[in-house]
């Protein structure tokens, strides 16, 4: 590797620490949302995703299932993000 390449590579390389931080923020917020919820949540999410995909092409992240707790009741919040241009499958 020439010296110019060496310095270019150094400049373009992202800090591994900032990659780590970003990955952690995503996974931790994901796991917090599922934590404390019923064990069937991941399955529910997976099956909903399959049903949605029969009609629309969506990312694996398109279906979000969250449980919110109040003193007296629990709310199951379901969020499905459809792509901007809906394609018929």
């Amino acid at each position: 590797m020439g010296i110019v390449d060496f310095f270019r590579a150094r400049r373009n390389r992202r800090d591994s620490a900032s990659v780590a931080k970003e990955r952690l923020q995503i996974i931790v917020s994901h796991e917090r949302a599922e934590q404390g919820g019923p064990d069937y949540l991941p399955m529910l999410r997976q099956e909903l995703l399959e049903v949605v995909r029969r009609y629309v092409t969506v990312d694996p992240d398109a279906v979000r299932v969250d449980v919110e707790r109040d003193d007296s009741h629990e709310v199951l919040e379901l969020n499905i993000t459809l792509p901007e241009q809906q394609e018929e499958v």
Partner: protein
Amino acid sequence: MSRIVVITSGKGGVGKTTTAASLASGLARAGFKVAVVDFDVGLRNLDLVMGCERRVVFDFVNVINGDARLNQALIKDKRLGNLSILPASQTRDKEALTEEGVEQVINDLRDQFDYIICDSPAGIERGSHLAAYHADDAIVVTNPEVSSVRDSDRVLGLLASRTRRAERGDAPVQEYLLLTRYDPQRVKRGDMLSVEDVQEILAVSLLGVIPESDVVLNASNAGVPVVLEENTDAGQAYDDAVARYLGDERPHRFLQTERKGLLGRMFGGS
């Protein structure tokens, strides 16, 4: 009113036992009556780190089973008279610790001690659950590294939902973060998560930052709690953490790389 403190982490090898030994010794040195309890059944190690492995006669499980009285199993520390160690059992039977047995021992310890430090095993199984269950305070030991931070977050979730305080609806367990094996040089190079990064992700109050240091290994080799190595960086960092736990406000040290002089740069190696 005694306080129960669990030292926990989820991940193994991050410094729980080192921290338990130092917190217990630091609190005892400050004049409190302290018991430190090893909950790692089958993998007893607190005795080695405290330097009392040759004096173990009875253990935690012997007390629960009624084979020994609590005061027969407690080992008095040779350095600090008001510090006692309750060693874990080396049995392979993980069911040896029962909920009722642990509760009974904790209650008996409350009569004699100001602080009861529970050194949790790694994982989120039975042993760590029992170690955390009675806690008033929790110190989550974390390395600036992805798997440790993620596991710490899991453990914080469990502390909020599966402890006695949570079950009874009492005030929640007071949680503290202790960051260990911190290397300011690697943080500066962008190779290691910074203390600010970890705090931002875990959102828990920071008790201290222990620098990566040969002193920690040397101290455990010798069976001396690091906090007693007063002239070292890691020893002073632990001393600061103990003082903060007791309510002192102390600035965080050892977070910056040392500035080397010309000679240091020429001859100092790394």
